[in-house]
């Protein structure tokens, strides 16, 4: 049987050719993906958080909000909640400033520009666990090469040295330094993506506007704050929002570097949910801890969608 219909040779109308059939069909895999990998786990997390689920029990009983009440009473949870915000906000502020500087540098023409871009992108392409293990060695209490360098420069390990007479700084053993380490490693990890996003934004600013401003006598800072940053604002917001989502839900850096220590001083919601829910077996409370991420993430997602819509309209 031919695909052609009758004497005119006109293709026969087929169900696949109807837009109202084809469009939903094409979008179905994406929806299926979201439902299976995001929707169902989310619903399960809500279900678990309202139950007495454990990693060993398949029989669940509804317990209402008991897990949330228990979690709120837990001092470690409150610490983890605060740490999550500190970790996210400080690292994103650093990412934003450093990415802007890097993007401004990389937009200039210079020798080895492509190599520089490649090296800057490297942390993003390497597996997060691998990079973080590398940093664990860099920040080791005994063998840290950073400490070695500081000792070599006379800044550490000698009486009267600027950073103290101890032979090491104990990056991951002192709460403030441990938090700083976690934030810096995460900043290192997130910087490439933000830089690439801002670089794309910078290249889209018409050169004639910058030239005109320069002719009118605007200096670098004036061009930066009154032309570049306002024009980059939508794309910068996208970079920040992506960064917030990634940071808020990240477990790898904290888990590998500090396991949330010392004494929970770097514990974040994602890692505490893992320790409570999986390691300790209390799936219900683990789910309740993890769900505290939801309101913040929902707000960020709403903002992202609104921003995307606004730029679409523009």
């Amino acid at each position, binding site marked *: 049987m*031919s695909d052609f219909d009758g004497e005119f040779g006109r293709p026969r109308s087929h169900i696949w050719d109807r837009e109202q059939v084809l469009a939903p069909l094409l979008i179905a895999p994406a929806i299926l993906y979201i439902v299976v990998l995001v929707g169902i786990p989310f619903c399960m997390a809500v279900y678990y958080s309202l139950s*007495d689920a454990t990693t060993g029990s*398949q029989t669940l009983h509804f317990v209402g909000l008991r897990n949330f009440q228990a979690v709120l009473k837990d001092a470690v949870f409150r610490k983890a909640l605060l740490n999550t915000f500190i970790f996210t906000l400080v690292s994103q502020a650093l990412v934003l400033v450093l990415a802007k500087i890097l993007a401004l540098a990389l937009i200039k023409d210079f020798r080895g520009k492509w190599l520089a871009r490649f090296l800057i992108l490297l942390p993003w392409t390497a597996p997060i666990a691998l990079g973080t293990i590398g940093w*664990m060695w860099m920040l080791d209490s005994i063998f840290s090469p950073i400490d070695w360098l500081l000792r070599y420069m006379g800044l550490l390990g000698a009486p009267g040295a600027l950073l103290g007479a101890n032979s090491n700084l104990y990056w991951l*053993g*002192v709460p403030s330094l*441990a938090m700083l380490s976690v934030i810096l490693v995460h900043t290192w990890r997130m910087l490439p993506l933000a830089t690439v996003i801002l670089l794309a934004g910078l290249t889209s600013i018409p050169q004639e506007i910058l030239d005109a401003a320069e002719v009118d006598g605007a200096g670098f800072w004036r061009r930066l704050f009154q032309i570049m940053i306002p024009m980059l604002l939508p794309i910068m917001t996208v970079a920040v929002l992506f960064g917030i989502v990634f940071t808020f839900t990240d477990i790898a850096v904290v888990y590998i570097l500090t*396991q949330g220590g*010392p004494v929970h001083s770097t514990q974040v919601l994602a890692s505490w949910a893992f320790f409570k829910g999986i390691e300790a077996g209390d799936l219900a409370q683990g789910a309740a801890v993890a769900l505290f991420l939801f309101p913040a993430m929902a707000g960020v997602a709403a903002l992202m969608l609104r921003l995307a819509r606004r730029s679409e309209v523009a």
Partner: protein
Amino acid sequence: MAKKTKKAITRRDFIKTAGAGVLAAGMGPTIFIPRQARAAGKELKILQWAHFVPRYDQEWFDNFAKQWGKENGVEVTVDHVNIGQVVPRASAELAAGKGHDLIETFAPPAQLEPSLLDLTDVNQEAERRFGKQLALCKRSSYNPNTKKYYGFCHGWVIDPGDYRKSLWEKVGKPQGPETWEDLITYGGKIKEKLGVQLGIGLSQELDSNMASRALLWSYDTGVQDASENVIIGNERTIEAVQFMSKLYKAAMTPEVFAWAPASNNRALIAGKASYILNSVSAYRSGQKKVPEIAKDVFFVPPLKGPRGTRWTCEHVIYNYIVPTYSRNADTAKKFMLALVANYDQAMYYSELYNSPAFFDVSVPKGNRGYAKVRGAKNLRDLNDAWFDKDPFALPGEATDKLKPLKDAMEWSTNVGHPGPASPAVGEVFGTFVVPNMMANAARGMKPETAVGQAETLTKAIFDKWRQKGLVGGKM
């Protein structure tokens, strides 16, 4: 029929092809299911952690499992994962209702009990065949409240004190510390005069958990009593915490707050620790990597507390669990019994890292892969002979270094001592309540406050699991 003309791929063709591909991919697993079903009972999938002593897996266990499978007509698969992956992987498999038939855990898996088969029969059979199981092993695999064996414990690991003899000699204590107080007296001197610190972890990791429990027990206190009542909030705990705070100031550095499980091994091998609490694996690594340091490493049994009590926590407890979903439970049970019957090789190929749960197992006849030990009839004889004369000592190295560990079964105990392991004990362990209590005090918190915080956390955890009927004691 009209001849088909050659044309570009249409949207319709694309959808048809893609649809067929997706359908085939989706159907794939179901197509193979009948074949898997036919193999039921004739296969055994084992999941266990990659042993700290690599030759245990590489030279012995994997071959032993395959050989056992061949002799019994069973297809055996052994998957090794990193120690940190065991619990998450087991939890995921139990939730999915699919996975391995036998899973080896390194800590009591009491929280998984409802999804595990009752192994009372294999435990009873093992005692019938091999004699009495060590009490610490039973307390790590049996829940007295539900009267269920949720695991089968085949072995455990000793956690002695490892010290650098040359350093302790210089401060007048060549035989190493005997009491916790010695750590302050002599360990403090070593740090002050020789610049080498002590290495007892105060971090959120395994070894710190064990060390802090050993201190509590030596101070005649603990997390729970024998009836599973929470007892951590008492004067003796405060006394122990005060001691740890003093010890930290006298002999340690902030590195101990950042330690991971391998940190004390590294510190010892690097010559940066005068005393650590660890299994013989730290020393074995040293023998291979830094022999001159390893030759200087000696061992002491647990340190005595102020009233002469001494205990140490098992370093690892080997528990096999069989998920309820397993269709090969009987095969799994046969394998566990075979493993116990061959535990002489487990001890030898782990370089004396593994100790047996059943010391009365007879030594099998024939070539066992190690030099025959004259007069050794059972594992206790082998244990005594090997600890008297270490078969893995380096040339020129003292062979009797492990002698103080010969009677380790007398002074080693389980995580929930003096009570059994339980999900509550496991959660207190897994959320680092005890080492953090010690660390808080070492960092300047009042010991009473640190103990009070730990008691609040511990009681909440115990109450929660009691409501599920898995833990005894009073609310």
